[in-house]
């Protein structure tokens, strides 16, 4: 129960749509519907490898299937944001908004992505700070041991 960038697909659903896609793939007759449904589940997986696979499937669809272009762009943005490829995610958002400038759903996705970037920027800095502190502590300890010895 979170938001569009953190909610995850139930495993049963992922498996169900995967099965349909693979059956069609085996017959060499994959419909855009089956590919999209599977890709939509993949980009909501908790595993980055699944998300990356979903992105590849969506990119294929984007090149080959005119009808669902806006859907593919939207989920390409979501997939990339979920694996922290933020600049790619935002470029898909921009591509979408250049076609449909006032789309609230996509504007809201853009702000969710930017908020996540902000938050992680701070977390990244905090982690770097933690490393500096740890190194400082080690140096301090080393100096204390050294001074005791002398």
């Amino acid at each position, binding site marked *: *129960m979170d938001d*569009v960038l953190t909610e995850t697909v139930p495993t049963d659903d992922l498996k169900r749509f995967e099965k349909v896609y693979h059956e069609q793939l085996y017959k060499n007759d994959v419909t855009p519907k089956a590919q*999209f449904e599977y890709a*939509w589940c993949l980009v909501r997986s908790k595993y980055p490898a699944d998300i990356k696979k979903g992105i590849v499937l969506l990119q294929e669809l984007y090149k080959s299937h005119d009808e669902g272009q806006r859907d593919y762009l939207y*989920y390409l943005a979501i997939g990339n944001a979920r694996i922290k490829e933020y600049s790619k995610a935002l470029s898909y958002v921009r591509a979408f908004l250049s076609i449909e400038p*006032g789309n*609230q*759903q996509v504007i*809201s996705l853009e702000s969710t992505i930017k908020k996540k970037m902000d938050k992680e920027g701070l977390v990244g800095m905090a982690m770097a700070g933690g490393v500096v502190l740890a190194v400082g502590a080690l140096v301090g300890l080393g100096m204390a041991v050294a001074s005791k010895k002398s």
Partner: protein
Amino acid sequence: MSAGPYNYSYIFKYIIIGDMGVGKSCLLHQFTEKKFMSDCPHTIGVEFGTRIIEVAGKKIKLQIWDTAGQERFRAVTRSYYRGAAGALMVYDITRRSTYNHLSSWLTDTRNLTNPNTVIFLIGNKCDLEGQRDVTYEEAKQFADENGLMFVEASAKTGQNVEEAFLETARKIYQSIQDGRLDLYAADSGVQHKPSQPGRNTLTNDQQSNKDNCAC
């Protein structure tokens, strides 16, 4: 929102479902932004919105999943039904076909949610009285027969929009108070956030009393 403890006691998960073009996203937007979106393109997949409300003095965060009405999204949007505490089922009072499809939406909801999920039927676009195609009475009867709560509302004027979202929350809250809804079941659609020391909720009082005794 500042860091630190949550400023709400519960999270309720809602879904909004119904045929395409009935105004699901506009209802959500009216509820979260208090604005009417006049130019509302078709939703892609699912859209998400939140708002914090108050029921019986408790702050509750609503997490609302607004599903796309277009048929091509329907198979995957079903996975969002799971664990919904509230389901707003919407039709358009000016288009009978959207009303005729309600039983199919209801079947999906009953099959994919839990028995305590509160289902609220909304007849949207009630500002368009001149184009009415479904009477209030027949929809009310349908709701009564199926044990649903019901209002006619308008995402455009805002009429009854708050009521629908808030009534649903009150009913869910009531189920928690009555002990019918198990807060700890994975699919209850409710999360408890016992995070404000000294301001514990009813369900938590016993636990904290015990803790106090032990000290």
